[in-house]
């Protein structure tokens, strides 16, 4: 399969680094950044966009609406 575009948008300032999305992702797409946002949280970043299947589990688990997965074109 061709390498997919990065389909997950993460609002790094809203993210609190709770990592529930990281824990639930079956493909290991997500991980914590090495940097912190303005609130001092290590925020979640997309580490392996090519592995994402748009299952939406990360969105479901996120308590902060920090994740958005736009519809496919």
């Amino acid at each position, binding site marked *: 399969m061709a390498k997919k575009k990065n389909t997950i948008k993460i609002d790094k*300032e*809203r993210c*609190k*680094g*709770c*990592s*529930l999305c990281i*824990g*639930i992702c079956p493909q290991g797409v997500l991980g914590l950044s090495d940097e912190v946002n303005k609130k001092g*949280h290590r925020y979640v970043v997309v580490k392996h966009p090519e592995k994402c299947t*748009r299952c*939406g*589990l990360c*969105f*479901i*688990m*996120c*308590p*902060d*609406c920090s*994740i*958005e*997965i*736009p*519809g*496919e074109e």
Partner: protein
Amino acid sequence: MKKNFTKPQSMKDVPTHYCPGCGHGLIHRLLCEVIDELGVRESTIAVAPVGCAVLAYDYWDFDTLEAAHGRTPAVATGIKRVLPDRLVFTYQGDGDLAAIGTAEIIHAGNRGENISVIFVNNGVYGMTGGQMAPTTLLGQVTSTTPNAREAKTEGFPIKITEMMAALSGVTYLERTSVSSPKEIMKTKKAIKKSFQTQLEGKGFSMVEVLSPCPTYWGLTPIKSMERIEREVVKEYPLGAIKG
């Protein structure tokens, strides 16, 4: 899959003050999704509690009234009786509903008030610094049970939802959790059923949602969800309790 995973319209675009991994953010999103799906945003009136969710009116894009601690079901009664065609729901924590507000919730249920109650049970008082709640488990350490909760001196975790099942005025009661995507979707389904029960004029309904409090459980968010699945559901089993 063409689904657009995005913030519901009924939720304001405001970052919340809740701790990382707190269940409130999840439950807020679910009830807002349901309100969007039912198309009732403009006829919804919510009653917010005292507790961590006291600032809920900053996050919900519909009319929200702040009630005194525990009085939420009485306040909702006042609103629903004068505006019976609106969707009126209360959102309460375990202190608001199961401690100071025990009389109000029982009697709102007993009168069969046609309202919906979302009862967020995280077994601890978050806002005020992690004190014991009526729903705290035996053996749990909190700031007012530093030597762990003991039945002899602190009593047992209270099962308000089971108690309310005995009331004839109550139509639908369910306990769910937010510990995994599967449980989160069940919570959403239960909230929708509760709101529909109200919109169809069928009487009082309540959804008790087992929710994590990583800060005062002293666990990471992921471990908190595991604790719900491992420990909390043993004391507070999931499923429909009535209706």
